[in-house]
């Protein structure tokens, strides 16, 4: 409900290249999530009546302060946990469990520490039963895409945070998912690495034409990457407003100084400030 009532001030104009306005890939219908038993004192309402339609090929940023339920929502879309009420459809079918059409990039990388980068990336291909030579080749190509060529035989603990996240992105892309779910993927990285990886993700998502849901609490990151920024508010987690981003794709570094970009980031900051302060 919240999504439809809150704001879309202008009609969607189809900025994502592949997005057909009628082609809904993920349909989040009135989703609620309660931790603990409803009605009891210790029950926490993490999500309340979240409705959101995501088009095929669209890049969505879920923006909000900690505790707004954005990661919970991502977890439900991934199939890691079930909604307490409402439902989420993927191409018309309810999501019931995790699967390779929706892969996840985690803030803490969640790489398999006992595997080399090569084997991490091959994991999803092995799950498909792909022959060894073929999956090795595909993995090498993906490792090249994220600029990790030469690090195939390294273990995660031998690499920096930024490199680990590149490896995790390659691993998530390997099963050729329809949807890429990113849960504050750059939250643990230093500022410079974060900016570099934002540009990488802008390029990769544009090239691969994936639907992306990108959870973040960074306003500029949310606006820089997304076709549509979905702003959430905490306690209970609700969709508060949506902002369409008219910047062309692929996104490049100079767009950060685009007047529209600068003023939108500032406006968002002004509106979100009270909530952020409350959350601190």
């Amino acid at each position: 409900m919240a999504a439809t009532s809150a704001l879309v001030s202008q009609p969607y104009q189809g900025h994502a290249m592949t997005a057909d306005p009628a082609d809904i890939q993920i349909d989040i219908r009135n989703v609620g999530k309660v931790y603990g038993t409803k009605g009891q004192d210790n029950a926490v309402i993490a999500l309340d009546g979240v409705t959101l339609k995501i088009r095929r090929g669209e890049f969505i940023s879920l923006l909000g302060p900690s505790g707004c339920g954005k990661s919970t929502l991502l977890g439900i879309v991934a199939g890691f946990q079930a909604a307490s009420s409402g439902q989420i459809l993927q191409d018309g079918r309810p999501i019931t469990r995790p699967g390779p059409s929706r892969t996840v990039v985690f803030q803490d990388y969640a790489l398999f520490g006992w595997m080399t980068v090569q084997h991490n990336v091959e994991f999803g291909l092995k799950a498909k039963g792909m022959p060894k030579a073929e999956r090795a080749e595909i993995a090498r190509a993906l490792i090249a895409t994220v600029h990790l060529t030469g690090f195939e035989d390294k273990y995660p603990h031998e690499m920096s945070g930024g490199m680990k996240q590149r490896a995790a992105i390659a691993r998530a892309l390997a099963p050729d998912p329809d949807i890429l779910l990113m849960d504050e993927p750059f939250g643990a990285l230093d500022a410079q690495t974060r900016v570099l990886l934002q540009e990488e993700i802008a390029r990769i998502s544009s090239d691969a034409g994936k639907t992306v849901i990108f959870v973040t609490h960074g306003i500029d990151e949310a606006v820089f990457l997304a076709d549509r920024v979905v702003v959430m508010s905490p306690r209970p987690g609700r969709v508060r407003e949506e902002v369409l981003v008219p910047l062309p794709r692929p996104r490049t570094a100079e767009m950060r100084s685009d007047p529209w970009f600068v003023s939108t980031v500032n406006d968002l900051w002004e509106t979100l400030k009270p909530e952020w302060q409350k959350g601190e």
Partner: protein
Amino acid sequence: MEAKADAGALMAAPALRQSASPRPLTRILANRSVRAALGLTAFFGLWQVLSSVGVIDDFLLPSPVAVARALWDLAVDGSLWIHLGASLQRVAVGFVLACIAGLALGLVCGWWRTISDYVRPVVEALRPIPPLAWIPITILWFGLGDAASYFLVFLGAFFPAFVATYTAVRSLDRNQMNAALCLGAKPWQLFWDVLIPASLPIILPGLRIALGVGWMCVVTAELIAAQTGLGYLIQQSRMLFQINNVVAGMVTIGLVGFAMSAILERVERKVNAWAPSERN
């Protein structure tokens, strides 16, 4: 290694703080095997000196030289090898059985909380009963044969194996499991490529402890319920007032246990090279 050597140099010779290469003696002492050998030599050396000057009454404790001579005689007449072989065979059988049962039950209890709620109280209530207290019942059930020793080794080794496996599965990284699931991992892949390797850094040290306990149990069992083995050698020598052979048996037990532990530690370091606890 280098850092340690440098630190050693600083402590040993403050004047040489600027020197790039530490003195040869410091470098040799930085080797941990050398330190281990020196520690053991000092122990036996002190024991020998105290025996030679008469502080230690050789009726109560024979000198290392006398023990070595007894060991040599036992080795030459072949009885040492028969007893050692019998003990090793018993500990091997009991340990393998304990590993199978401990790993299986630990995995099941770690994975399914409901089963663990039923099973763990039983395990935790049996765990404090020392193997020694099981001896009467063991003899009643199995008589005075190898089976009694197998059972006692099993009892000693099972609990550390179980606890380590249970703890390992319980402390699995939720995100890593989720990552595997969203990449489409099949059950076998989840088990062999994620669950097992992720658990080994906790399971293997547990198995090393289990083997140590099993080794103690086999000797205990042989003191009472066997006609061969190092425990039997000690018991028989005691009755014949051959105190040298008693201590020779004890020294063999100590050295073999030390060797087993050292070998397993090497294996651990190789297998778990990726894990944070095994670094440096």
